[in-house]
């Protein structure tokens, strides 16, 4: 029996899917490897990233935040300025172009808050592909404006009513669709999860973030940053941010997970911190699960981090201790959200606010003359309703 190391990150990764999908994964892997080296493909991709998505994104020196924390120099990588308002589009344009070149006619995708669904619908529109998005019925209810955006972009949204009716169930439903329609359809996975080649391929498409940071920060300061911080849900903006720095041992990397209502409460999405090794959605990685191996629901105020698993490369980077993974609660993320809005006039996504909160909370840990980059993976417009409700709740509590 052959033991394949393809698509493995240490013991993590693999292709834990029904056999029906294996030919499709082989085909995708083959075509991706081929097109990756194709100059024409790279040229088209670079053109779309520049002229459609708006790359490169700025690296902004946050002077007011730097003064506020009385600590290191803070730079923000502005993925929030991309078309669609988040880093997701780096991946959807890449995979969309790939699917188009492979002659696929139909795209399916899962989405939690709707950010990946919107970015997928945009990419599909460019390439004229039919798009269907699976979204948990609970998320459809909570994120109506994104559901409407997807409809405007000509995508069909399927509310998922199975299981817990959230992101993990929409992944299940998308996989079931793919098993059924594998010949015509490409499953455009939104993060560095799933069976090989997805974790590697999505990482490659997102690694443009870290490549830009590297050259921008060297240009600005003359040297590499001392620390880089990004939030981790499935982990695509974090891997995209970290990948170029993995071999730079002097650069400390921090991945921040959603601590929800706190570790003791059990209501969190701290997969790497509190999860156990398991197998789900095609990959071996860390998952939130009970003692029998039933997957638990994750909780986070930010829908983009609300997933009970994490990409296999993060699991590996945790085990080899290359990246420090930590947790920030809903409350701490909320404070960071408000602070950045006031200090810098930037409204960050609640996801990215987790990375910021870690820095604010631990500012003393970093030396004053060091340089830190925080990836702002998306903008916070989608979170305004949640923030407003939270503030109103706080005010009510005060009145009491």
């Amino acid at each position, binding site marked *: *029996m*052959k*033991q*394949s190391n393809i698509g493995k990150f240490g013991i993590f990764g*693999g*292709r*834990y*899917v*029904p*056999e*029906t999908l*294996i*030919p499709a994964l082989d085909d995708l892997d083959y075509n991706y490897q081929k097109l990756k080296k194709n100059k024409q493909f790279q040229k088209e991709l670079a053109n779309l990233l520049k002229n459609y998505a708006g790359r490169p994104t700025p690296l902004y020196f946050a002077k007011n935040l730097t003064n506020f924390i009385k600590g290191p120099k803070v730079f923000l990588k502005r993925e929030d300025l991309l078309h669609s308002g988040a880093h997701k589009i780096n991946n959807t344009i890449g995979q969309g172009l790939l699917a188009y070149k492979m002659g696929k006619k139909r795209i399916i995708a899962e989405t939690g808050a709707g950010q990946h669904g919107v970015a997928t619908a945009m990419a599909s529109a460019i390439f004229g592909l039919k798009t269907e998005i699976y979204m948990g019925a609970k998320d459809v209810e909570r994120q109506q404006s994104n559901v409407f955006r997807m409809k405007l972009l000509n995508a069909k949204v399927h509310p998922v009513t*199975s*299981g817990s009716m959230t992101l*993990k*169930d929409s992944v*299940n439903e998308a*996989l*079931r669709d793919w*098993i*059924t*329609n*594998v*010949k015509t359809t490409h499953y455009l996975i939104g993060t560095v999860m799933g069976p090989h080649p997805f974790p590697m391929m999505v990482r490659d498409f997102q690694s443009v973030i870290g490549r830009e940071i590297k050259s921008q920060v060297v240009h600005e300061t003359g040297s590499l940053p001392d620390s880089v911080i990004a939030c981790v849900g499935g982990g695509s903006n974090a891997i995209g941010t970290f990948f170029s720095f993995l071999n730079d041992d002097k650069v400390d990397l921090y991945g921040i997970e959603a601590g929800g209502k706190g570790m003791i409460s059990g209501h969190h999405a701290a997969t790497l911190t509190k999860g*156990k*090794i*398991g*197998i*789900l*959605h*095609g990959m*071996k990685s860390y*998952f939130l*699960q009970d*003692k*029998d*191996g*039933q*997957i638990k629901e994750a909780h986070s105020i930010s829908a983009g981090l609300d997933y009970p698993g994490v990409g296999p490369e993060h699991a590996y980077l945790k085990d080899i201790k290359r990246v420090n993974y930590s947790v920030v609660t809903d409350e701490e993320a909320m404070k960071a959200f408000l602070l950045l809005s006031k200090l810098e006039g930037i409204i960050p996504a609640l996801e990215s606010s987790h990375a910021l909160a870690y820095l604010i909370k631990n500012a003393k840990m970093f030396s004053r003359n060091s340089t830190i980059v925080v990836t702002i993976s998306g903008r916070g417009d989608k979170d305004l309703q949640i923030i407003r409700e939270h503030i109103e709740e706080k005010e009510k509590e005060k009145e009491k």
Partner: protein
Amino acid sequence: MKKKKKKKKNDEIEMNENRNKVNVLFDSLSQKGKKALICYVVGGYPDQETSKEIIKTLINSGADIIEIGIPFSDPMADGPTIQQASLKALEKGITPLKCFNIVKDLKKQFKDTPFLFMTYSNIVFSNNLRNFLIAAKKNRIDGFIIPDLNVEDSKEYLELARTLGLATIFLSAPNTTKKRLSEIASASTGFVYMVSVFGITGSRQNFEKYTFDAVQKTKEIINRYKIPLAVGFGISNPTDGKNILKAGADGIIVGSSVMKLIMDNENDKDKMLLELGNFIKELKAICK
């Protein structure tokens, strides 16, 4: 590659001393010129006691092999019927351990009937693979079907299962290449499980030609490995079953249609068991 083949032969010699019940069954059926009827139920649905009564009825009506699904929170290869049943069984507190106990009890009465577990990788791998397989063996489970496990990710599982004499049944699909079919056949013991369609579990209107072509192709290839072929997913009536067997399968697997009968008659157990018995008898009649 040559070296590995030799190793497999040695394993077979060891296995022969205590042959897996699945092999014994297929051998005896083939001597009689008969085909196997394999029935799937969700373990612990609607509750543990009824689950046992259901399985008794299936065996007494002609089921040759019983597949018990250990419910998993995220059953990605299953359609709505089995999803719903799994979720309900979980809500009522079913666990892998309780599924072990179901088999242990039933084996007292049906010692020669092979019992297989069908469940997802996480249930088998997430605690301690070795302990899980040993516990299964102790509770007289005869083998495993894991729909989200494929041959290249299963080295450790195969080694442990071989040592314990548990059957390792891998799945193939209509689009599986000939090369992979060979790999699947050589990793499988008991039988190879061909998924009949592009899709998830659940009954269908009619099979298309590609299904029968795939049965024929698969049988041709796996025959070289002297391992039987059973076909499942979507077989819901005797006519479907008959056509699949005619195309070359050694057995048929019914799951969702069995579960649907159970779920439709949940409030009337007598009627449920009667209808199940009749359905299985009809299917058994074509397994020749």
